[in-house]
């Protein structure tokens, strides 16, 4: 569907400061045609700033953006040809669904029959044929969301930018719209930059994740890469490595075998991240990676403190003899007060430098 093909969108040291506070610093990223990139991070990490800079709604304070060889960060938004889906949709309340979707085409002086044809196609694509002549305030949140998406893609933009488009929807609708966005991306192959604070959303949609924190890029990688091997303790924490334990890395470790100790806990890790040295380190373990079983290696003896039923499994809080609290997810039904043993595979023990965060 995309009319003018470009090869890559290149962000070079993109930065934005508001007065003295730096919202985004030195974002460099190359996005290939048709790629789905998610900017992920907690609120205030600079992800929306990055998107607004891409859209041209915020001028950069440093850096540049290129579409193939052409510099575009100096162009106003109306000349960038990037479609954008806003968090609160920003639909035009005085126009019908059809007029909202056709707005961009009308502005570009597209011939009437072509507007008609493309708007109808877009309406079908987002399954709104029954509501085409309604006004936005007569639609549900999910329907408004579809209008916002249709309005952005009907102009066949070079790139589609989405700013937390699902954050206002309830859980069920969010899942539905997520599949919808995935389907549209598969069908149209539009290059998409998607901003979200929801790691699950980012993991399920994106080809590539960019994790941001305090305006700085923390990690860029495939969803699996970021999920399985967070590069530092911040990313680990954000990706659900809920157990962050201060431990000591013992000397004499070698590839596949690093020994760690803390009061009462002895662990072996198969690898360490750059910067972690002998002495104090931060160990991250995901609750799902802890298994309730007795093992000769990486065994942690503990007592069950609280149990939360969560449908497919239980979220369990246990504590070690020394009173250290560990979070576990397990399908096994335990009893409060029960004594049990945990174990974790050495390759699922992440070792980071202590002062990283």
């Amino acid at each position, binding site marked *: 569907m995309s009319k003018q093909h470009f090869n890559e969108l290149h962000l070079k040291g993109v930065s934005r400061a508001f007065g003295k506070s730096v919202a985004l610093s030195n974002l460099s990223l190359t996005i290939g045609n048709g790629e789905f990139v998610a900017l992920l991070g907690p609120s205030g990490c600079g992800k929306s700033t990055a998107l607004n800079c891409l*859209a*041209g*709604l915020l001028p950069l304070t440093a850096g540049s953006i290129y579409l193939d060889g052409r510099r575009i960060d100096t162009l*106003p*938004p*109306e*000349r*960038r*040809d*990037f*479609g*954008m889906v*806003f968090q*609160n*949709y*920003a*639909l*035009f*309340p*005085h126009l019908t669904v059809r007029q909202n979707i056709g*707005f*961009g085409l009308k*502005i*570009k002086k597209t011939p009437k029959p072509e507007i008609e044809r493309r708007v109808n196609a877009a309406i079908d694509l987002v399954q709104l044929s029954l509501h085409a002549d309604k*006004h*936005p*305030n*007569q*639609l549900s*949140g999910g329907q*408004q969301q579809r209008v916002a998406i249709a*309005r*952005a893609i009907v*102009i066949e933009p070079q790139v589609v*930018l989405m700013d937390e488009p699902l954050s*206002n929807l309830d859980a069920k609708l969010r899942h539905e719209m997520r599949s919808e966005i995935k389907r549209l991306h598969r069908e149209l192959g539009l290059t998409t930059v998607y901003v979200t604070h929801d790691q699950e959303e980012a993991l399920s949609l994106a080809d590539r994740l960019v994790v941001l924190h305090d305006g700085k890029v923390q990690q860029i990688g495939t969803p699996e890469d970021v999920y399985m091997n967070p590069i530092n303790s911040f990313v680990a924490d954000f990706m659900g490595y809920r157990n962050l334990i201060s431990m000591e890395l013992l000397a004499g470790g070698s590839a596949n075998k690093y020994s760690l100790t803390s009061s009462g806990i002895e662990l072996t890790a198969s690898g360490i991240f750059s910067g972690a040295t002998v002495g104090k380190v931060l160990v991250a373990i995901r609750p799902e990676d802890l298994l309730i079983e007795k093992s000769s290696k990486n065994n942690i003896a503990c007592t069950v403190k609280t149990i939360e039923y969560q449908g497919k499994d239980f979220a369990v809080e246990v504590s070690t003899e020394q009173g250290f609290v560990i979070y576990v997810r397990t399908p096994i039904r335990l009893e409060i007060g029960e004594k049990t043993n945990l174990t974790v595979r050495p390759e699922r023990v992440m070792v980071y430098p202590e002062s990283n965060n």
Partner: protein
Amino acid sequence: MSAIDASKSSLNLKSWLAEHGIDRLLFLVIPAFLAMLTFFIYPTIYGTYLSFHPMDKSGALGNYRSFFGDPYMRDSIWNTFRIALPVSVINVFAAIPLAVRLRHRVRGKRTINTLLVIPMSLGTVLIAEGLSAYLAPNGWLNRTLLATGIISQPLQLLHNFWGVMISLLITGFPFAFLLTLSYISGINPKMEEAASTLGATPWQRFRYITFPLLTPGLAITFCLNFVLAFSVFPSANLLGNPAGDSHVLAVAAAQAISSKYDYSMASAISVITGVLELAVVAIVLIMRSRLYSGSTSGGKG
């Protein structure tokens, strides 16, 4: 049995009252209602009654017949419209660009706002006095224009149509500006951003998004300005030509009292003024009701 029935019916009454918003807070409305009754409703009814009882006992419609029969009196309607309509239109349209510009945070916004609002707080008489010195043939304006060679004869801006016009523009503009600013601030700026990502230039964003969403507010702004300008009296007297082309309805009514002591005729002129005002406001509001006038926040509905 009957005790239960009684408590049940008093419960019903209570829920009926609650349902219709009737509670003790309603007593707070009484002072305002009394004021309305004493100072607005009664005088209006009495004035209307008076207008149908002419001094010369020429029948219920006598005042109206003599008003519309006299070309000099009849022309006061045209004189009033000729000033009030352009003034309101100009004020509303002049307020738009300024309000658009000042809706975001701008350096010196407070200063500009203050400067714009001062004329409103000064009162029409003071402004008229000031203008009569400023606009006089030997006033600052004419002297400056003559000195710079822009004109060779002093402009005649006093005691005619222009004097009234200029004074009404100065007093009415702050109203129009403040109202327009508040309407425009209610429009979600994200909508203009959305339009810009869809390829709309600043002018197209104003033309297709901001202006249509602003129109209902502009209609109200126009009505308020029009009503203010329509009952013009001080500036017509002080800066205009109250015997000639500034012989507006308010002047005609005042003259009926001051020269002939004809309260009945003055009442008839007031009734005519009110009916004409209402007619214009009604036309504008009917036109407004055909426009989109819902939420301008553009968020979830």
